[in-house]
């Protein structure tokens, strides 16, 4: 292969779009051609830098609710006298609704994102002694990582996430085909609080605070199983 043939293929190789045989030919040429090797290294550096440094913009809190609001069926048309009444009813209904927990909302969104395979796990390991140190230096606290395989939740790995504008450790468990995310964040001075259940958008989440860390557990496993897992993790992670 010549340089003229190789140059256009370097990007395809980088992007994983080249067939196995051409990959070998490209690599063979690159190994003995300094100019092509330089260009290959530069492309690789650009791609690495982009993946490392470019901002993956996170949706602002409450975005989904705002996006879906206009899609909901409209209420019957109001008469001239009704708007003021409707407004006061709306205020009353709003006030009566439990306040949505922004952290839980973000945890659920992060969980939903992680269900896409390529976003689920940064460090793949079933070994807690591999996952725990992986978080060192990535989040500003030690992350308790427990193996729960004896209760059916196999440790699958860890992932760095952002919740509430803060780095969060996501410890990922798997049960059959279901994924469970345990988000761990710095509690920022909040005192201990026992597990509390929250329902949003058909997802169940458990949140608690213990030993200076905040935890949010989200998963699409059966509710009693998730509750039991939350209790075990909360009881032992302090």
């Amino acid at each position, binding site marked *: 292969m010549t340089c003229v043939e190789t140059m256009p293929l370097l990007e395809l190789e980088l*992007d994983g779009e080249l067939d196995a045989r051409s990959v070998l030919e490209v690599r063979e040429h690159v190994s003995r051609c300094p100019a092509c090797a330089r260009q290959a290294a530069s492309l690789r550096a*650009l791609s690495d*830098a982009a993946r490392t440094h470019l901002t*993956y*913009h996170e949706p602002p809190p409450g975005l989904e609710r705002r996006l*879906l609001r206009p899609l909901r069926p409209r209420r019957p048309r109001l008469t001239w006298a009704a708007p003021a009444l409707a407004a006061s009813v709306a205020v009353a209904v709003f006030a009566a609704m439990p306040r949505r927990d922004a952290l839980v909302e973000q945890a659920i969104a992060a969980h*939903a994102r992680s269900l896409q395979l390529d976003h689920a796990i940064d460090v793949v390991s079933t070994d807690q002694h591999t996952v725990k140190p992986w978080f060192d230096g990535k989040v500003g606290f030690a992350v308790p990582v427990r193996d729960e395989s004896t209760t059916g939740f196999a440790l699958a790995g860890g992932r760095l996430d952002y919740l509430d504008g803060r780095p969060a450790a996501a410890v990922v468990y798997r049960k059959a085909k279901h994924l469970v995310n345990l988000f761990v964040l710095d509690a920022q001075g909040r005192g201990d609080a026992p597990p509390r259940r929250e329902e949003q*958008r058909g997802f169940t989440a458990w949140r608690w605070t213990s030993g200076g860390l905040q935890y949010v557990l989200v998963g699409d496993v059966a509710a009693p199983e998730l509750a039991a897992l939350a209790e075990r993790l909360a009881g032992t992670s302090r």
Partner: protein
Amino acid sequence: MSEAAKVDAFQRALVPHMGAAWNLARWLVRDSADAEDVLQEAYVRAFRHFDSFRGERARGWLLSIVRNACWSFLSRKGQTEEVFDEERDTAAVVPLQLTPEPEAQLVRSDQARRIQEEVEALRPEFREAFVLRELEGLSYKEIADVTAVPIGTVMSRLSRARRELQARLGDTGLKASAS
């Protein structure tokens, strides 16, 4: 299906992809308020066509609707009018001056800021291809489907984006930032 049930099904299908939709819109229109307006428009459009959606490849389906909404927005704002001039735009590409040997950490954050700025400064069609490839990890075929152009066009846009970024950032800069 009742209207309310349709909204629920719509919500379930799209929840996992809202992050990708937001990221793409935010990169294309480069402003949070505008991105939200555009996404709102896209969601209304997507909902209207949800009956014809068969449940496969929800991400690509949503992303193509979102990018179309972004492009209508950009063309309304006149940001797509400018025609690419090979000679002028390539001549303008000058490698940035590198700072002389500050601390490693400083170099890194400086590089992070610069690559961010340079990608933001790319023409929208190059920026779109680059972001879909590097941040969303889409294949050429997937990018072609989302942006409704042939694969060859995707390849040349990606290539242009990279050539421009390489020239603007310079090799030294990239090595420092990738470390």
